[in-house]
């Protein structure tokens, strides 16, 4: 994995074919929680892209320079990564609140929500040490920092894309003549299932 083409493949593979929400079913809480409204889903997606990238970078550094050399990573990675991601997000939230109140309004309120969201933790762990989570994507034995970043960007953009498209669907469903018993969440679950089928279908195009 070194050429630009392979990096692009990595990105698309992480974003669409192995979409974390709709084929791996990780991070479903924000997927249903904030998808009722297009605007909030947009803010949430931006926050996810931001936090995931940050989290992956930090876990990659900690894994490569601390946990792996000491040989304690295999069993210590979850507490260590949670610790790092949580405090980093806290730090960024404080910094953002002080330096840019506007940005804080737009994105900051979502930061605590996804501090150590499962999707963030899974992606950060996978980027630091491929193979810990069954993400169905062959990343090889280990990733360079650049590859880890591209992978994380792919996952988070895929997350945002799925979340925003789902929010758009739900906004239309709100005014559609849905039977009364199915209104609201039941319809959202069925829609999510159909959307998931479509995403799983993308893998079929490539015979994966």
């Amino acid at each position: 994995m070194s050429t630009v083409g392979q990096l692009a493949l990595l990105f698309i593979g992480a974003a669409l074919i192995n979409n974390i929400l709709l084929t791996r079913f990780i991070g479903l809480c924000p997927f249903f929680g904030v998808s009722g409204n297009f605007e909030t889903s947009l803010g949430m997606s931006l926050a996810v892209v931001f936090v995931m990238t940050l989290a992956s970078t930090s876990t990659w550094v900690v894994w490569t320079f601390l946990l792996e050399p000491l040989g304690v990573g295999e069993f210590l990675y979850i507490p260590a990564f949670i610790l790092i991601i949580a405090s980093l997000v806290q730090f960024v939230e404080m910094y953002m609140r002080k330096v840019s109140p506007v940005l804080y309004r737009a994105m900051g309120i979502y930061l605590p929500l996804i501090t150590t969201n499962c999707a963030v933790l899974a992606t950060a762990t996978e980027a630091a040490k491929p193979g810990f989570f069954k993400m169905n994507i062959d990343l090889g034995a280990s990733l360079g920092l650049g590859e880890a970043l591209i992978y994380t960007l792919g996952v988070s953009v895929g997350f945002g894309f799925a979340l925003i498209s789902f929010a758009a669907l739900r906004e239309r469903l709100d005014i559609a003549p849905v039977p009364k018993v199915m209104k609201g969440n039941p319809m959202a679950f069925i829609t999510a299932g159909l959307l998931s089928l479509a995403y799983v279908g993308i893998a079929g195009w490539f015979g994966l």
Partner: protein
Amino acid sequence: MDLMLILKAVLTLSALGLITSAVLSTAARRFYVEVDPRVEAVAAILPGSNCGACGNPSCFTVAEGIVEGTLPVNACVAGGQSCADSIAVLMGAEACAVASVVSIRACGGGNKAERAFEYGGVQSCAAVARLAGGSLVCTAGCLGYGDCVEACPFDAIAIDERGLPVIDLDACTGCGICVHNCPRGGVGLLSLVPENAPVAVRCNAHDKIKDRKAACSACCIACKKCERACPADAIHVIDALAVIDYEKCTACGTCVSVCPQNCIDIHGRAATIPPRAADGHGKNAPGFAVQDQAAE
């Protein structure tokens, strides 16, 4: 059991924990943002429904504005006088009057209005308004599918047996969300009037009288009887529609009695929900006489 491994693990995790907590506690002091405790207190008094009637994005920004002094203590339209008073006490400012408004419907058609076609689609005013301009012959009348009922954050609107939305003046805060959500709100079907506005013209049509009569039996026919009868010169027929000047109206009720179409009424008179007695809405309300004196 490898003792070194355990030691390494414990040390690594505690070192990580110590470093991050040190960084966080430094940051907490370094990037501390002073929050005025009064903001929380003011936010607790505000209705918190984020209706946007005051023109601000949320109740919290209003609270911040009030505390900073950029907004007056009576900035909240929906909260009304009591809300402004409590905030004034909290802020040590002088209490000031809130110019309250309420929503009013300018249509008396409902089931009496002629239908242009049978509509069986999505039961929403917005949907039917997009279909050939609505199912009514009248282009200004109430479509009656209750988008305003859905939109009202204060549950102040209900569709009555005439097929018309009736606004409960006790619950209406004048936030104007119904006006924005009404597909015909922009042309004046729903509008905001002063809270004490005593009479209402229940028609909003501006087309030719002949067309209007064919479309609805409850319309204003621009006969000018109210204009001639009004002792305070408060009603004028403008563009073939009676318009009331609430600055001049004394709530004498003459126009209500002379209107041959019954299309002027005391605000809330025909409401199934009892009108707000203390504020002088409704013809039997005790406040009615008080208001007369005030107007004089």
